[in-house]
């Protein structure tokens, strides 16, 4: 683990050329009712440094499982997961994650929640307060430093969670349906903010979403997965510079293509039916 220079000016140069994720021949099974069940089947994927990759796919096709493997919360798999050549064996401050539920600690203020992420970094103590303040500003939550999570709206809490994940300056940020619980309007707003943040930070990001439009708006590439077992079905390049215009005809054409892909070839069990409309709540 190499420490980052935390000076803001250095961020862009320090970040470039880092955060390359290589997934090769990844297989993952869970034991359900005593029977091993293949959840992820032969996943191969290379995410370039600084790239934004979106993942869409039917509910239950293993998207969260994939992210949990990459972040290191689950380490039982076969195949290889490497970040900048280093094999992933457990969690690391180089890899951040934003969960679908914000998972802020209710007894900590917004500020304390974000500061917690810095606890075991080598950031000098004297600089932490400033870094926390910078990240609160980054997600437009200035003025809410002392607010407790229950005093924040859903969108604000989710932005706070994004700030917490970014504050350690991870080389790779994973986002598991980070905006799934938000209403359409807030969602569009936070999407734009996310794009702005990503453009400023240029760290590698992998985002799971149920919203094809969102996937296309943010992603350099969109990975389309199919279920039972989870496989990569198709990878769509979105050859459009950022910041993007939502009304771009290319995005609309790709959206129709992906939706057709997701619904047509889907298994007869109709999993794809709830693909776009029902963001799944993660089981507690």
């Amino acid at each position, binding site marked *: 683990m190499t420490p980052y220079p935390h000076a803001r000016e250095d961020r862009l140069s320090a970040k470039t050329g880092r955060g390359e994720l290589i997934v090769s021949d990844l297989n993952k099974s869970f034991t359900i009712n005593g029977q091993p069940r293949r959840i992820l089947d032969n996943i191969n994927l290379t995410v370039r440094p600084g790239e934004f990759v979106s993942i869409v796919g039917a509910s239950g096709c293993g998207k969260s499982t994939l992210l949990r493997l990459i972040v290191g919360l689950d380490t039982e798999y076969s195949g290889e997961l490497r970040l900048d050549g280093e094999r992933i064996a457990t969690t690391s401050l180089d890899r951040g994650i934003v969960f679908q539920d914000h998972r802020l600690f209710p007894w900590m203020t917004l500020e304390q929640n974000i500061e917690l992420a810095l606890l075991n970094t080598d950031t000098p103590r004297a600089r932490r307060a400033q870094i926390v303040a910078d990240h609160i500003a980054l997600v437009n939550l*200035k003025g809410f430093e002392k607010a407790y999570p229950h005093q924040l709206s859903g969108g604000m809490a989710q932005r706070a969670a994004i700030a917490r994940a970014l504050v350690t300056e991870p080389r790779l940020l994973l986002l598991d349906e980070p905006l799934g619980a938000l209403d359409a309007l807030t969602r569009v707003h936070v999407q734009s903010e996310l794009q702005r943040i990503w453009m400023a930070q240029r760290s590698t990001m992998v985002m799971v979403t149920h919203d094809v439009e969102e996937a296309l708006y943010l992603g350099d590439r969109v990975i389309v997965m199919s279920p039972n077992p989870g496989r990569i079905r198709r990878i769509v390049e979105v050859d459009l510079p950022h910041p993007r215009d939502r009304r771009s005809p290319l995005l609309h054409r790709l959206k129709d293509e992906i939706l057709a892909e997701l619904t047509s070839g889907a298994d007869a069990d109709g999993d794809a039916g709830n693909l776009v409309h029902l963001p799944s709540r993660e089981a507690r």
Partner: protein
Amino acid sequence: MASRAADFPVAGGAGAGFRFRLPPVGAVVPLVALLMAWQIACLTGLFPPQVLVPPSGVARALVDMTQSGELQRHVGDSLFRLTVGFAIGAVAGMAFGAVIALSRLAEAALSPLFMTLWQVPVIAFVPMMVMFLGIDEPFKLAVVAIAAFFPMALATFDGIRGVPRNWFEVAKVYRLRLPQLIRRILLPATVPAVLTGLRVSLTRAWVVLVAAELLAADSGIGQMMEMGRQLFQIDVVLAGVMVSGLIGFLLDRGARWVESRATRWRAA
């Protein structure tokens, strides 16, 4: 966005978790009505004074006992027992609850016994304990400790087991070390349940203590009532009822206050 900060309610500001400054008028009305009905029932001779003393008589007894210092002595003795016995029982209960929550082995071995003993009313232990401990201080402390132990152990167990796994995952993502995990996540996450347990076991311990003093004691609010009964001093008995009720009420309110102060971060 920044302009919105102005009207954001700062935690701990006016009103937050501070609800018991004055009893609302509505709560006083039934109390006054009861006292009046009681006084009238006595004045009209509905009950003979040997059976029911009017509130004014009880008030006189309270004044007399306060002036002689008798009341303070009894209340002091009872509160001392409550404090010491409760401290012992609550600490032991917390430790026990934590152990069975954190160790599956301890849970499997101890929880059936615990659950069985918990079903026994604490008062049912009294005859046996009098035999072993006599009726002096150790007996009363033990009764209070046992009364506090069970609800405290249960609350601690539930509190620790109730910490969502999700939070441990966050701790793992940010590489918290075990002491950090305990201090910053596990303890604060368990505090609400433990404080509720403290309140429940405190009021329970008080009730059980007064009952134990009624049965066997040489001082304390319960013994004061028992002596009053034996000497046909109904005013003293009723004074004891009122004082023990008031103390129980204040203990509950005090514990609630501490609870709301310590968990101000929770949604109102």
